[in-house]
């Protein structure tokens, strides 16, 4: 009978003495990096440059465009479309908060309470990904259909009265209102919140809970003073992974919303693919990118976690 001593050794942090020498071939890293970096430079960085240049061009589809440093495009984009930008931030923010509130208990459940069901529950969290997200989003049309059981129940409980008063639903309808869009966004990005939360919760030594209890902390105090602070990295990366894609999304607003719930993504899509006003579209896209990068940078600074990748 062999004694099993845990998992195979994961590397202890290598000290300065442990680095392997590569006397032969100092160029190797550059050769390894070349194809990937070239790809990203040409198809990620260069497009950004083109987009920046397009945003300050004037002209028309027929006559072609020229760079004229026409910064007024930006001004026009802001004055024309500020409600959509505001909505993007508001809807994405609301969805992120909802994801955190809904996702934390589930991540906690998987990490500490699921026991032998842990893997099964994890599979159930990831499984919806296997069905195209468009099909699943369309299913919400059925779930939230006018006069359907969900809306009927909400109406009977007078929830809709409250939400109507708040202005996120209209009358006895949920579909084609902000609530439907936020509900769809929350649903679509919930796994992106749960998985990082689970990863950071799972690393917490269960004995810490016992230690906190031993030191006179009630369960809720233990959560507030021990568990939650230790899961902070998961909270930060989870909120980022939710907020960033949600703020640029236009599928939920399009499928579950109405013209009154259009977000920045919808405007960019329409300008690029329908109106074909490329300078305005490029300026809008640039503004969205700048806004989100600013919010994300601020957030990362405030939360004090620099090392996310």
């Amino acid at each position, binding site marked *: 009978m062999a004694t099993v001593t845990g998992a195979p050794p994961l590397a202890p942090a290598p000290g300065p003495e442990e680095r392997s020498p590569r006397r032969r071939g100092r160029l190797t890293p550059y050769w390894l990096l070349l194809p990937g970096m070239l790809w990203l430079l040409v198809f990620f960085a260069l*497009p950004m440059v083109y987009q920046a240049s397009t945003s300050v061009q004037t002209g028309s589809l027929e006559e072609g465009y020229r760079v004229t440093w026409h910064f007024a495009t930006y001004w026009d984009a802001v004055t024309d479309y500020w409600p959509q930008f505001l909505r993007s931030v508001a809807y994405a923010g609301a969805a992120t908060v909802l994801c955190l509130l809904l996702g934390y208990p589930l991540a906690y459940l998987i990490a500490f309470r699921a026991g032998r069901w842990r893997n099964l529950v994890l599979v159930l969290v990831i499984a919806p990904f*296997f069905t195209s997200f468009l099909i699943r989003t369309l299913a919400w049309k059925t779930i939230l*259909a006018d006069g359907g059981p969900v809306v009927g129940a909400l109406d009977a409980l007078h929830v809709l009265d409250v939400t109507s008063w708040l202005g996120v639903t209209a009358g006895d309808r949920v579909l084609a209102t902000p609530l439907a869009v936020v509900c769809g966004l929350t649903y679509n990005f919930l796994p992106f919140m749960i998985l990082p939360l689970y990863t950071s919760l799972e690393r917490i030594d269960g004995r810490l809970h016992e230690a906190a209890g031993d030191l006179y902390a009630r369960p809720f105090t233990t959560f507030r003073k021990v568990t939650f602070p230790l899961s902070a990295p998961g909270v930060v990366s989870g909120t980022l992974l939710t907020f*960033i894609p949600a703020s*640029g999304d236009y599928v939920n607003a399009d499928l579950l919303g109405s013209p009154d719930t259009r977000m920045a993504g919808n405007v960019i899509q329409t300008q690029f693919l329908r109106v074909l006003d490329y300078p305005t579209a490029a300026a809008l896209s640039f503004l969205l990118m700048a806004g989100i990068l600013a919010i994300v940078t601020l957030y990362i600074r405030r939360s004090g976690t620099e090392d996310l990748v």
Partner: protein
Amino acid sequence: MTFLRSLSRRLKRRLVVIAGLLTLGYLLLPNIVVTVFSFNDPKGRFNYEWQRFSTDAWTDPCGVAGLCGSLSLSLQLAAWATLGATVLGTMTAFALVRYRFRARGAVNSLIFLPMAMPEVVMAASLLTLFLNLGAELGFRTILIAHVVFCLSFVVTAVKARVMSMDPRLEQAAQDLYAGPLQTFLRVTLPIAAPGIAAGALLAFALSFDDFIITNFTAGSTVTFPMFVWGSAQRGTPVQINVVGTAVFLVAVLCVLAAMVMGNRRNRRRAS
């Protein structure tokens, strides 16, 4: 009174479990709806209201013009994108973990930024590039775009695995007469394989399900998500629910089978 108090105490202790299960229900509800409605026989063009039970769509999944064509296109696209992103991403990850070089920070940000950017921005900028270069939109432009956004995720997955690998293992191989190529093939690659596989799977899933970036770079090419999007405007055939349910079931069964086999192997090992 005592009964109520003990009930409330029991509820309090179970609060996390109840809340967690409710969230799980929220996550799974649409899949249940999709599955149920794959057996619907809708009246009009839209499959949003339950009419009556029918297995027509299951017996004739390709019965809608363009659906199976778009599905096979999406599979090909995902396969190529996975191959490209996995090869490039694995090389990049190895360079990042195993070597020291200049411009490390720049390389890291170039990998991080595509993940920190809303898809619509990346999609719009790529379209600007393609328009400016006069490239013809189609399979090739979609593939380029997919490799861009899958690459970062592959790098992250492979990097995590390679970082947790003891560098002494490769040194031990060298010490035991394995040259650089032998060391890579016999030690590094087999040990990094789970990370590479995870990255590849993620890339495949991302590419197969992508809509936003594809919508901008596809021109008139129709992938499966594009087909679904189009049908949401014109009328949703039951067959898309069939495809959604089938892929879901196959994937879940594969995962469960892998889990059961893993459990059995562990049990055999332990005895």
